[in-house]
């Protein structure tokens, strides 16, 4: 039984079927980008174990095809199993072993990158200091306890939790948050009579001045959804409602980028639906940004950011020049010069945190060494035979 399983996992047939499935996945994933957009396809097709297809508007979905993670994992297991089954520790096979080892590192590195790497962006105007970067798409409902003089305690609720009808409770919050309505994509418009016409049930904070309109999911590559939600802040228990009454309905939206504030349980709080933030234990300050064009054109020739890196814990206080293909690597993060705001008023740095960033480099070196060894040994054997034949 065990042997049959092992034979199946190490079979060439499984390799062919997996590679075939990968081709089908890439083909349909490419076609699906027309309607779903690149980001959705990447998440649903390639960064999933199973592709689930929604059925109607009832929230039901059915599995239709293995996702990229599953196919990748099967290929990886297949490669390792084949390696185990056919492994022969001989000098002549060393090249093949290295090539396989390199492929395993590459596949595993890809999987780990998918799971653990993050990409975010830091916008800095000249003179501005920041200790966080923002995700390009993923949003969070940040509930901030501002009562401490030295720090703010942030409870970050991922947007996937903001489902209509969902009640959110957490040990760090002395209240619960009831999501009345969640808008995946929305537009806010000012309305003095928003409450009367019932378009915005928000009755507290800045949001009460707006009506919110649901929009279709943005699929274009250069657009993202603008999320909004109508939430109600309620006491944890009914008995608590005497001391801390319900705080009404709030409209939170990434279009309201300044936090909305309130007091609860004697503490000052603020809430904001915003792009997910990644904080660092150090700061970057933009000293200077330069942007050179090719003469007579608007084509970018070079753009550079001079930043000051300040990290008291590491006693770092130095200037760094970041420009194209010359990123700053510091404490696991890599800062690439990614872009700039119109009229060069701010620089945009892409911040990549990838714990396994060495995997592709290592894999390439190992595979190259394996190929050199394998073909080199063949060449050596061939030329030696030829010399012997010539000599005889």
């Amino acid at each position, binding site marked *: 039984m065990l*042997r049959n399983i*092992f034979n199946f996992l190490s079979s060439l047939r499984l390799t062919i079927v997996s590679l075939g499935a990968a081709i089908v996945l890439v083909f349909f994933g490419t076609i699906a980008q027309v309607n779903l957009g690149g980001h959705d396809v990447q998440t649903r097709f390639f960064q999933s174990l199973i592709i689930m297809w929604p059925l109607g508007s009832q929230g039901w979905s059915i599995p239709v095809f293995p996702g990229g993670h599953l196919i990748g*994992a099967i290929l*990886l*297991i297949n490669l*390792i199993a084949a*390696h*185990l089954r056919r*492994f022969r*520790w001989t000098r002549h096979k060393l090249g093949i072993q290295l090539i396989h080892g390199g492929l*395993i590192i590459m596949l*595993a590195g890809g*999987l*780990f990158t*998918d*799971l653990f790497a993050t990409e975010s*962006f830091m*916008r800095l*105007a000249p003179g*501005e*200091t920041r*200790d*966080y970067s923002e995700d390009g798409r993923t949003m969070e409902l940040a509930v901030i306890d501002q009562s401490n*003089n*030295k*720090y*703010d*305690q*942030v*409870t*970050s*609720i*991922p947007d*996937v*939790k903001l489902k209509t009808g969902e009640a959110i409770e*957490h040990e760090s919050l002395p209240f619960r948050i009831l999501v009345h309505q969640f808008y995946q994509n929305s*537009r*806010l*418009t*000012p*309305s*003095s009579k928003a409450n009367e016409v019932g378009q915005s049930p928000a009755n507290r904070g*800045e949001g009460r001045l707006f009506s919110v309109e649901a929009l279709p999911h943005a699929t274009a590559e*250069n*657009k*993202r959804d*603008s999320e909004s939600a109508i939430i109600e802040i309620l006491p944890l228990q009914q008995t608590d409602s005497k001391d801390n009454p319900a705080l009404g309905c709030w409209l939170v*939206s*990434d279009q*309201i*980028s*300044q936090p*909305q504030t309130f007091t609860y349980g004697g503490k000052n709080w603020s809430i904001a639906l915003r792009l997910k933030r990644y*904080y660092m234990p150090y700061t970057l*300050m933009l000293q200077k940004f330069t942007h050179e064009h090719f003469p007579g054109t608007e084509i970018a020739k070079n753009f550079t950011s001079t930043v000051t890196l300040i990290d008291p814990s590491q006693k770092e206080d130095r200037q760094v020049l970041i420009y194209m293909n010359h990123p700053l690597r510091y404490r696991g993060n890599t800062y690439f010069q990614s872009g700039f*705001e*119109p*009229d060069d*008023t*701010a620089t945009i740095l892409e911040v990549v945190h990838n714990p396994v960033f060495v995997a592709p480099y290592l894999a390439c070196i190992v595979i190259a060494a394996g190929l050199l060894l394998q073909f080199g040994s063949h060449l050596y054997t061939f030329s030696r035979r030829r010399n012997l034949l010539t000599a005889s």
Partner: protein
Amino acid sequence: MWYDANRVKWRCQPLCFALILLAGLCAGCQKKGEITVYRVCKPTTPTSEPDASGTQINRSALPTRALPSIPAEESEALIHWQTPKEWKPSPPSAMRYANFEVSLEGNARADVSVVTFEGDGGGDLENVNRWRQQIGLPAANAKELRTLVLPIQCQSGRILMVDLQSPQGDLLAGWIRNAERCWFFKLTASGSIPEMEKEHFIKFLRSVSLRP
């Protein structure tokens, strides 16, 4: 035996590797969608100075993004304008794309704000009545609106302007729409607005140029 005992030692290493990989996969799957709690130092006042040139403000360059946010992917300047040198830029508030402070006679101050929304930004009558309500004036009807609105030619077409006066303070407001969004420009003061400042405001409106 289906395995070769001599090669067990070599096989254990990739097997352990595969197990670690699967553990990582599971850990990665659990990571998403969880509520997290963290502490951050109190935000300090931004060290950057607002654009002092007075010629153009780009919201994305400001220390904090104003409301409503413009998608970060939009890479071209959405609007250009010329401001009088007397107007001092100030950081935007929650609602505003840009802010200016204007010093009037004595210690009086006026406030200029620029707000933008995607879409048409609501009806003209509703917007004008909201401003009238802010300075304690009764709501106007559609017929009265026609007499209140003054068209001003700017670089990108016609801006509509109203000049509202009340004992609570004066308010000048202009608005213009293009295919994507609506822009509102507003000058408010707690008292009356001097004619010179009205001229400045109208000159500012004339300089407005929207991205095509």
